[in-house]
C-alpha cells in the first residue's frame, strides 16, 4: 500500500463513490435495510453475471457491446420457448444462443481482426433486429407464471437469499478461479497487456480472444434466463442500453479499458457500487432516466481516472 501517500485517480473515484453511498445511506431512509439490500442485489445479479463475462473481454483489451441486445434476444427466446416447447428449452437454448453469438464476435474480432468497438456495435444492431423478427415486434410473456418451476430461478429464495444472487455468486467464484488461477487467465492478461509480445511468447492470442468472447456470450445467455424467470415476460428491447451499464460497472471496479489489468473482485465491487447508487436515486424518487445520466458520468469519470493513472505510471 505504497500509494497511500498520494492516492491514485482510481482510488479517488472509488472514495467518491463510497462517499455518495454513505450520504445516500444517511439521507435516504431504508437504503441499507435488509429488504432493500436483498432487492437491490437481486436486481444487480443480471448486470453482474454479464459483467463477469465482459471483464474477460475488457482485460483482453477489447469491448463487447453486444450484451444488451443479446440479453433481449435470449430473453424473448426463453419466454416464448417456455410455453411453446418446455421450460427445459427455456433454460438451455438461450445459453446456446449466447455461445454462438460469442463465437461470431470472437470470429469477427480475433480471426478477422476487426476493431472490437465497431464489430460488436454492428452485432448489437443485428441481434436487436433478430429479436424483433423472432417476436414479430410483440412482447412475450408466460401465461401461468405461478405454475412453473422455471420461476424459481428468478424469484426463488434459499435461506432468505434470492436465487439470482446465489447464481451470481457461484458464477463469480467460477470466473474468478478461471481468471486468477489458470493458465488461460494468465494468457488473458498478457494478451490484453501486449498482444504482440504474447504472440512472441508462444501464446495463441487469437484463441484466447475468441474464448473471452465465448465466455461473455455464454454468461449473457445465462443472465437472460435469470432475467426472464424473474420478470416472466420479455420485451424485445429488455436489454437495451445494458451494455453501457455493464461496461461502467466493470471499469468503475477498476478494470482498465486499455487491457491487461483488472479482476473479477473489482467487477463485483463495481457492480455493487453502481447498483447502490442507482437504487438510491430511485428511492429518492428521481426518474429512471437519471440513471442513464449517472451511468455516463461514471463511465467518463472512470475513463479519465484510468488514463490519468496510466499517464502517471508510465511516465514516472
Amino acid at each position, binding site marked *: 500500500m505504497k500509494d497511500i501517500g498520494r492516492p491514485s485517480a482510481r482510488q479517488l473515484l472509488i472514495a467518491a463513490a463510497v462517499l455518495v453511498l454513505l450520504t445516500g445511506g444517511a439521507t435516504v431512509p431504508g437504503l441499507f435495510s435488509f429488504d432493500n439490500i436483498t432487492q437491490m442485489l437481486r436486481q444487480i445479479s443480471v448486470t453482474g453475471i454479464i459483467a463477469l463475462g465482459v471483464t474477460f473481454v475488457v482485460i483482453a483489451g477489447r469491448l463487447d457491446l453486444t450484451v444488451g441486445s443479446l440479453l433481449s434476444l435470449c430473453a424473448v427466446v426463453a419466454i416464448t420457448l417456455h410455453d411453446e416447447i418446455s421450460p427445459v428449452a427455456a433454460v438451455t437454448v438461450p445459453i446456446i444462443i449466447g455461445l454462438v453469438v460469442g463465437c461470431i464476435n470472437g470470429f469477427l474480432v480475433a480471426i478477422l481482426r476487426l476493431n472490437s468497438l465497431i464489430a460488436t456495435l454492428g452485432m448489437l444492431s443485428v441481434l436487436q433486429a433478430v429479436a424483433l423478427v423472432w417476436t414479430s415486434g410483440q412482447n412475450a410473456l408466460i401465461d401461468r407464471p405461478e405454475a412453473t418451476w422455471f420461476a424459481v430461478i428468478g424469484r426463488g429464495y434459499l435461506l432468505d437469499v434470492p436465487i439470482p444472487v446465489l447464481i451470481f455468486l457461484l458464477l463469480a467464484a467460477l470466473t474468478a478461479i478461471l481468471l486468477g*488461477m489458470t493458465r488461460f487467465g494468465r494468457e488473458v*492478461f498478457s494478451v490484453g497487456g*501486449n498482444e504482440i509480445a504474447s504472440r512472441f511468447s508462444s501464446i*495463441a492470442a487469437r484463441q484466447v480472444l475468441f474464448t473471452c468472447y465465448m465466455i461473455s456470450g455464454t454468461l449473457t445467455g445465462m443472465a437472460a434466463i435469470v432475467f426472464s424467470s424473474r420478470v416472466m415476460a420479455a420485451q424485445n428491447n429488455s436489454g437495451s442500453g445494458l451494455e453501457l451499464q455493464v461496461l461502467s460497472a466493470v471499469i468503475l471496479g477498476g478494470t482498465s479499458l486499455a487491457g491487461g*489489468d483488472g479482476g473479477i473482485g473489482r467487477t463485483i465491487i463495481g457492480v455493487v457500487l453502481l447498483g447502490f447508487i442507482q437504487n438510491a436515486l430511485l428511492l429518492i424518487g428521481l426518474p429512471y432516466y437519471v440513471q442513464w445520466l449517472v451511468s455516463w458520468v461514471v463511465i467518463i469519470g472512470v475513463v479519465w481516472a484510468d488514463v490519468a493513472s496510466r499517464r502517471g505510471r508510465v511516465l514516472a
Partner: protein
Amino acid sequence: MSIAPQPLQSQPEATQGAIISLEGVGRTFPGVIALSDVTFDVLPGEVHALCGENGAGKSTLMRVMAGSFPQDSGTISYRGETVTFASPMDAKRRGILLIHQEISLVPELSVAENIFLGDFPKLRGGRLDTKKLYRDAEHVLEDCGYDLDAHAIVGDLSLARQQMVEIARATAFNCSVVIFDEPTGALTNQEAEALFVTIDRLKKRGVGIVYISHKMKEVLTLADRVTVLRDGKVTGTLSGEKITEREITRLMIGRSLDSYFHRARRRIGEEVLRLEGFGVGGSAKTVDLSIRAGEIVGLYGLVGAGRSELMEAVFGLRKITSGKLSWCGQLREISSPKDAVRLGIGFVPEDRKEQGLVLGLGARDNTSMASLRRLVRFGFMDTIKEQSIFEKYRERLEIKVSTAKTRVGTLSGGNQQKIVLAKWMATAPKLLILDEPTRGIDVNAKAEVHALIGELAESGLAVILISSEMPEIIGLSHRIVTIYQGEVTGDLAAEHVTEDMLVERVMNPPERFADLLIG
C-alpha cells in the same frame, strides 16, 4: 566510396566560430549517468563524426543538442550566445535538425507537402497555395540535386528516397546544423553514395553536420573531426591525419577487442537446426544455414537485409515460402511460435518493449509467459513452482527488482532484457535466437548479457546472435554468417574475421563472394 576525404584546414581554436557548442554538459537518468562533462562543437561546413558503442551516450548527446530534453549541467551556446532549448521545435526554429534512423514523415502526403509541413505557403484567406508549394518544392529538390517527383506520395518511396525528402526539408528550412543518426543503416551502396554527395553539398553551403555511425569506413571517409564517447564521457576528439581506425577503436573501447569479449569455449555437439533453400516472404532469395549445439552463430547484415525476418520465420511468426527446416536431424514444419517453443526454440526479439515484454505486468508474470504450459498442475497455475523459477533466474541473472510483482515497465533496459532472457531460459530451449540482445542497455548489463551468452553456449545451447554491433558479433560468435538482401554472402570462422570483411559482405552483391562460401 567515391567521396574523397576533405581534410579541414587546421583549426586550433575550435570553439571560435562554432555554430553550436556544448560545454561541460551532463545528463543523468534515474540510476544512469548518460552524459558527464561533455564538450562538443560543430563548425560551419564541417562533418563532425560522433563515435561510440551503443549506450555510450551518443543518442543522449544528440537529443540534448536537438532539444528533446534539457541537460542537467553545463551550457549550450548557439552562435556564441547561451541558449536553452525548450523543445525540439525550438531547436528546429534555430536551424538544428535531427534526422533519425526512423524516418519521421507523413506517409500519406506528397513529397512537397512533407517538405513544407508546418509551413505551407498560403493564399489570402488561408487557402493553400498549391502552385507555390509544388514550385518551391521542385526548386528545393533541384537545389539538392535529387531526382524526385514533388507530387509522389511519400509512403510509396523507398527508404532511401524518404530520407532524401527529410534532407530536402532540412535544406528548405535553411538549417544550420543537421544531425544524422546512422543514416546509411537501411541504404544500399549506391543510395549511401548519393547521401554522401548530399552531405558534401550541405557542407559547401556552410551547414555543420554531426554524423553518427557505427561504420568505420564512412566515418573515416566523411569526417573532418571525430569525437569519441565512452560511458557518457568524451574520450577524445581527433582531427586531420589523426583520424585512424586504430585510434578511434582505442578511444571507443579503451582496450583491445580480444580482452573485451570472452568467446565461449567451442564444444560443438550434434546439429540442432538446418535450413535448406529456406525462403521468406516476397524475396525469392533462399538461405542455407546450419547450427550445432554449443555453437554461437552470428548473423550479420544491414537493417532490411532480412536477418530478423529469417529468424521470425524459423520461430513460426512468418510464413515460409520455400525450402526445408530440419530440427535435430528430422524434417519439421513450424507454423506458430507454439510449435517452435515445443521443439525447444527461444526467441529474444529485437524490440524489447513491443515484442519482448508486457510492460504493465509484473516481473514474475513476464518471466513465466513462455513456459505457462509447464507451470500447470491439475489444471491450475502452480504459483509456488512459478515463484521458485522466478527466484532462480532473479538470482542467476542478478535481476534488480524490488518484488516479483514490480511492473517491468518501471525497470531499466538492462533489467528488462534480463527478464526477457529469463523468460526463454525458463523454457529450457535447445536453440536460442537473440535479436539485438544488448540494444539500449547500459555497459554493465551489456557485459553481463555477453557473459551469459557465453555460459549458455558452453552448457550446450545453440545460439543464433543477430547484432548490428560488429565488435559484439565478432567477439562472441564462433561463426559469422553474413546476409545481403536476403542472401547468404559469407560463412566465416569468427577468429579471423575483421570488421572490413563483414562490411564488404553486407554492402555488396553476393556474386563477388560466391567462391568464398564455405558451404
